[in-house]
């Protein structure tokens, strides 16, 4: 990952106070999408790197791009190493998401809410989870980032986004 431009600031400073003391002692690990799996990808599945395995269950900081979805899901969004747009209505899971795409999960109490799409790079901090998980649409994610409550603005629109 290239060095970050000056305006970058840690997003979730406030979240740290919620963490157990053992975790508090260690700052969030810097991770980049290219750290997740051995590259280039071999002939079969993905090979998780030692760095990914070490980050499992820990607080990490990731810089990526929010995927522009046609049919956003409540309580979650995708973060990818590069800007990607999806056309789920026509294409479903035949998509252009890189394999390192991370499913970002809002805190449990906010799973009914939609997060607005935001262009440009986003820095997110949260607890990293690795392993297969199927969501209610049947899509399997392999890497998930659990955000802390402070990640989200207090003022909110109740409106759900357009859906077909």
């Amino acid at each position: 990952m290239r060095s970050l431009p000056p305006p970058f600031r840690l997003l979730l400073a406030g979240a740290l106070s919620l963490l157990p003391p053992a975790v508090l002692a260690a700052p969030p690990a810097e991770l980049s999408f290219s750290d997740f799996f051995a590259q280039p990808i071999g002939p079969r599945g993905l090979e998780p790197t030692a760095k990914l395995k070490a980050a499992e269950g820990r607080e990490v900081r990731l810089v990526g791009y929010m995927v522009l979805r046609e049919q956003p899901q409540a309580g979650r969004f995708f973060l990818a190493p590069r800007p990607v747009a999806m056309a789920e209505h026509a294409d479903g899971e035949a998509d252009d998401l890189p394999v390192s795409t991370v499913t970002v999960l809002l805190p449990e109490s906010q799973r009914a809410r939609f997060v607005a799409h935001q262009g440009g790079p986003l820095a997110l901090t949260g607890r990293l989870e690795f392993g297969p998980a199927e969501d209610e649409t049947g899509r399997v994610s392999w890497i998930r980032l659990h955000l802390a409550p402070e990640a989200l603005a207090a003022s909110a629109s109740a409106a759900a986004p357009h859906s077909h």
Partner: protein
Amino acid sequence: MKTTLLLATLVAGSAAAAPTVTRLTPPSELFASGRADPVIARFLPGQRFDLQATVKPDAGQKITAARFFIDGKPVNATVALRDCASGCTKGLAAETAIATVRTVSSEVAGKHELSVEATQADGQKVTARGNFEVVPFTAAMGPKVKNIIILLGDGMGASQRTAARIVHGYAQGKALQPLAMDSFTATALVKTSSLNSIVTDSAPGMTSYVSGNKNNNNEEGVFPDDTVDAFDNPRIEYLSEYLHRTQGKQLGVVTTADVFDATPAGNAVHTSNRGAGTGIVDQFFDDRGNTGLTVLMGGGRKWFLPAGTAGSARTDTSDYAFSATDAHTAEITRRWGAAAGSLDKGRDLIKEFQSAGFSYAATKTDLDKADAARPLLGLFAFSNMNVALDKINGRRGVEKNGTGGGSVVEDFGLPDQPMLDEMAAKAIGVLKRSPKGFVLMIEGASIDKQAHLMDTERWLLETLEFDRAVRVAQDFAAEQGDTLVIVTADHECSGAALIGGSMVTDKALAELATKKGVANLRNSVVGVYEKAGFPRYKIAADGYPETTDIDYRLLVGYGANADRYEDWRTKKTPQRDVQQPFGSEAPLKWYPANAQERDDALGDYLVTGQVPGEQAVHTATDVPLSAYGPGALAFTGVIDNTDVFFKLAQAAVRGVVAPADTSGSKKPPKPKH
């Protein structure tokens, strides 16, 4: 007689309730509206299809028996009868009955009446009628074609074709180098509507060409039903299955999309849910004995990896397993000779393909080395393959738009992906060894996908890549003389319109983008009529433009667009986005009530869309179809997408009914490349 019965029942129904037939399949206008025309369902002589009726009994009653009749004669086959205590669509009473007969066919040409008679426990009977047609083969004027190649430019309307030709260059109004598809000898205009909409999606768009029938959107090789099971619908035999069963032809499916996507699956897989990835790829493999599947190439490796392997997308919820005891699905296995399937997300499908004798290619290098004497599985990406523009930039080592300073394909971890023409050449190399011939579908998938995103340059290069695959197929057909090739689309996407040319250099365009707004990016840029002139792209030795960011470039507008920001330049993301300040200084925002709150374009020129949401959509506009090879001139006029199936089958089964070109020759003219 049956009419009398029906009337008697209706009269009785006005006094007391009576059972009613709420659906009769195959679909017909006769059943739906009482009109005998148009006939909706049409089949080849002997082509297999299923019959089904949904019957609602009176409250407290149940349906005890159902019989189907064709032209008044009982259909002699097991009627599977089930109720709707579970597994039916919402709103259906539990006692609703679904009666099905699998694999019916007729050799008798012409219109047929289909009727069903259902009996309720109290002895009341109900009948309903519909119709279908068997389209006969006609006398041939030339020999049968051995091979059929269908080139499907997904979403490729006339605009996408024209745009690709303009990139090849024009001089004083004349094309410098026509597309390969321009040199096909016959062209028709195709009506693309699906069974349930003027605007089709890719599932019925494909299946109409290879089943002769209209399907609902999202459905592949099946008629709609009233159950939630995505794999139990009434089936229609595909061209691949019909020609494999009757002639021993092999099937090849090649795409730049994920291979489970609607267009590839719509040649071999029967499901009402185009999204059921695990079941779809399983069926490709398990029912290869029915389809003759010999080559399968594209992206979609995620569906072939066992659920425990990182990157796998296999789930039991997108899979299927037919009951061996419930006749409703057991008859699919028995009558169609189809696999029962099983909920086996842990299945290693790559390994199973290999054990069945297939070569497996994960890269272009593997593809080049693959033994043409063996069937071939190629899975070059985890979902869709990267698009031509990014693959070519990766090969050239230019336009390093990756986040890691490398190319986009390196970013994806898949730097060695083949181009579609390379895949097409290999597929033909394998399939031409089929002694009885083959059916090969080659899809340029991301013409559509990039048009959805209104990413002009990316769908432009997809169309150029697709045309190179067209050329490979045409050259093979020219050499063989026994191969019929069609190139068409399933539908148009995005309402693309070639509105003119830029009036400025690329440098000036970039500067105007920094000045922002409609005055700079529209009024100063968009050259219409003679101000468009002739954009001059330079084609490199690899067949693609040296750059798409030329001075005085081609400009494309969108008629089926969502709101979009436009700066006319090739999307080089993420470089462009990196120049923006980080979006995350403030906490993430909830979804705005107003969709206009999107912020992504530096140029600040918002084009308001006619469709809601984020993406451009498919349109109902007719699409061109061009044909090359023996019998090509049968493909003229304004035709229905389902007509194409009958023309292809006629050529393969009985022989061609038209010359190859207007000279009257039975052999196609040599292409002038």
